[in-house]
């Protein structure tokens, strides 16, 4: 799939752009950070001469050497904690968790250490650590290599959390993440690595906490991030072509901080909202966003905010089961039609 998405909210230092993949855009951001800041180093499993299992760090080891692109033993808890310690001591590490599922192995280091040390030090230390990882279903990964766990990081106070949907945002948000003085979790989607898009060459920074309106429509607001944005855009085209329903699609880009204002402004105009994400439905970001919108936009809403999300069971292996688990474009279309229909019903009463 080639993304047609432009980047209205992007702050960019360079007008020139090129069409590259999401993986290449991340690679560019890492290379630029390594080039411009001697305190930046990368660490993780197989990221060196191996180039990473998805080849995201390909070539960086050769270009920057073993001191800047560090292969670690398979010890997620240790290398995440080590990266945090190096960050406290003045460096800017970028640790790669090969799969987000492995973040759970490093759970104590992430949630009890990284997320808390700055605050419980009385503000005397900072942890400018970026944790890069990837998640989601790309076909046959099984239940320990397919999860979507962004909600854990959003729920635990202390992390900024980026969920890039496009190559340009992947580059811009990662650059911003590495420069932030607080812990950031940068969650890529394995299903997006080979998607292509226009990416500014040279320095490109996308600030955290600024949503991007990807499509404009007056009938309903679709809110998503990461791969869900692409489902929403596809659904919006079908809704327009076949049902005459025009949807606004908002990509929040970062879930912490969350640009709820941009979403609420849209909902005030469309009076209806559906939140879409791949992660499991219960206690997910959809619940949080729907709740915040209910608080802010109660009188604007014609229908209850709805969610389209993954199922509340482990991700199965078999293809038909995996597809049944995964939210589909058609589920978004149906949910929108039900929501708009319910809204119309409410209006006619």
């Amino acid at each position, binding site marked *: 799939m080639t993304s047609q998405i432009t980047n209205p909210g992007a702050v960019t230092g360079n007008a020139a752009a090129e069409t590259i993949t999401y993986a290449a855009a991340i690679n560019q951001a890492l290379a630029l950070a390594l080039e411009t800041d001697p305190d930046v180093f990368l660490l993780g499993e197989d990221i060196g001469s191996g180039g990473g299992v998805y080849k995201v760090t390909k070539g960086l080891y050769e270009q920057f050497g073993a001191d800047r692109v560090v292969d670690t*033993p398979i010890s997620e808890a240790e290398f995440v*904690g080590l990266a945090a*310690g*190096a960050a*406290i001591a*003045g460096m800017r590490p970028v640790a790669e968790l090969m799969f987000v599922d492995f973040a759970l192995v490093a759970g104590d280091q992430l949630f009890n*250490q990284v997320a808390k040390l700055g605050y419980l030090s*009385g*503000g005397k230390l900072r942890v400018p650590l970026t944790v890069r990882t990837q998640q989601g279903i790309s076909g046959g990964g099984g239940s320990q290599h397919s999860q979507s766990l962004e909600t854990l990081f959003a729920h635990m106070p202390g992390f900024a959390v980026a969920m890039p949907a496009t190559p340009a945002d992947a580059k811009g948000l990662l650059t911003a993440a590495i420069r932030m003085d607080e812990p950031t979790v940068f969650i890529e989607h394995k299903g997006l690595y080979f998607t292509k898009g226009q990416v500014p060459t040279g320095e490109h920074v996308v600030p955290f906490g600024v949503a991007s309106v990807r499509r404009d429509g007056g009938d309903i607001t679709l809110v998503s991030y990461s791969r869900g944005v692409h489902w929403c855009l596809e659904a919006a085209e079908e809704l327009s072509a076949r049902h005459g329903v025009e949807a606004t699609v908002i990509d929040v880009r970062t879930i912490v901080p969350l640009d709820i204002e941009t979403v609420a402004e849209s909902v005030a105009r469309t009076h209806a909202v559906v939140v879409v994400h791949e992660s499991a439905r219960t206690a997910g970001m959809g619940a949080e966003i729907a709740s915040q919108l209910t608080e802010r936009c109660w009188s604007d809403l014609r229908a209850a905010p709805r969610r389209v999300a993954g199922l509340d069971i482990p991700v199965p292996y078999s293809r038909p089961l995996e597809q049944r688990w995964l939210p589909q474009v058609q589920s978004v279309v149906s949910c929108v039609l039900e929501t708009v229909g319910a809204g119309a019903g409410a209006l006619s009463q």
Partner: protein
Amino acid sequence: MTTAPTWGDEQLLGAYRDMWRIRHVETRSERLFREAKVKGSMHLYEGQEAVAVGVCAALDDGDALSFTYRSHGWALARGIPPVEVFGECFGREVGCARGRGGSKHLGDWDRRILPSNAIVAGGLPVATGVAYAARARRTSDVTIAALGDGALNQGVVHEALTFASLWRLPIVFVCEDNGYAELTPGHEFQPVETLSERAAGYGVAVAECDGMDVQSVAGVAQVAVGRARSGAGPTFLAAKTYRFCGHMTGDAQAYRTRDEVEAWRRRDPLLITAECLQQRGFGTDALDEVRDSVAEEVATAEAEAWSAPEPEPADIYQGAPSWTVQR
């Protein structure tokens, strides 16, 4: 590993003073808990004073410390003043973590002291990271990572020792073997006879010392810190010691006998150092003066901390990330 030469009189007297400071703070802490002036449990260091004081004597200003919820002794030995330790236990703004940490999380990064950890062994990976940065930035700073014998059964100890050895990190793991993992005696959780046997498999240097004798600790610590500083890599330093108090305040200590505690009290680190000082010609009066003057210093600090202001509720977001939604 050989023990370094014993200290001069002045240094030994200084260590005696430092150990009394810890003992007085802990005696008062126990009292303050009973009087409900301190909320939550505290994990006191009484009996183990020689370990922190002996190790910290080997350190320079740039060296870093990672330690555990049995925190008061290490914090004091590394230079956090008693008023800041009491202040933190009382939840006061004057505390070393401005009342955000509490007894379990003493620390002061301005002094290169990481917040102490209330997760057993949880601080070790971060400690290796501080050591990693020292090596990467070509400083000669050393990191001390204190842990207890009970911590050895946590997975990250295995991982941290592996990384430290593999990358020759400038770090010294100080394992305080007080014989108990919380309320459980060592023979129930240590599969081999000595802790050093467990560490040796990682390819780190291993050293043992008498954790009740501050000069024994200081001797091996000096060698281990020197090794780390010179780039020779990490050391696992096992200090055999004993805590006279319970695991935490309020611990009924049904897991050990009074006789056992009394036997160890005859090896009180303060007693051992006092005897050594007496052999060097210090009189009882001189030693009593040290004990009493530190007691006064500690009492003054406690009173000052107690009357210091608590943090303002309005300041609750200080130290949180800038983008935190404030409600």
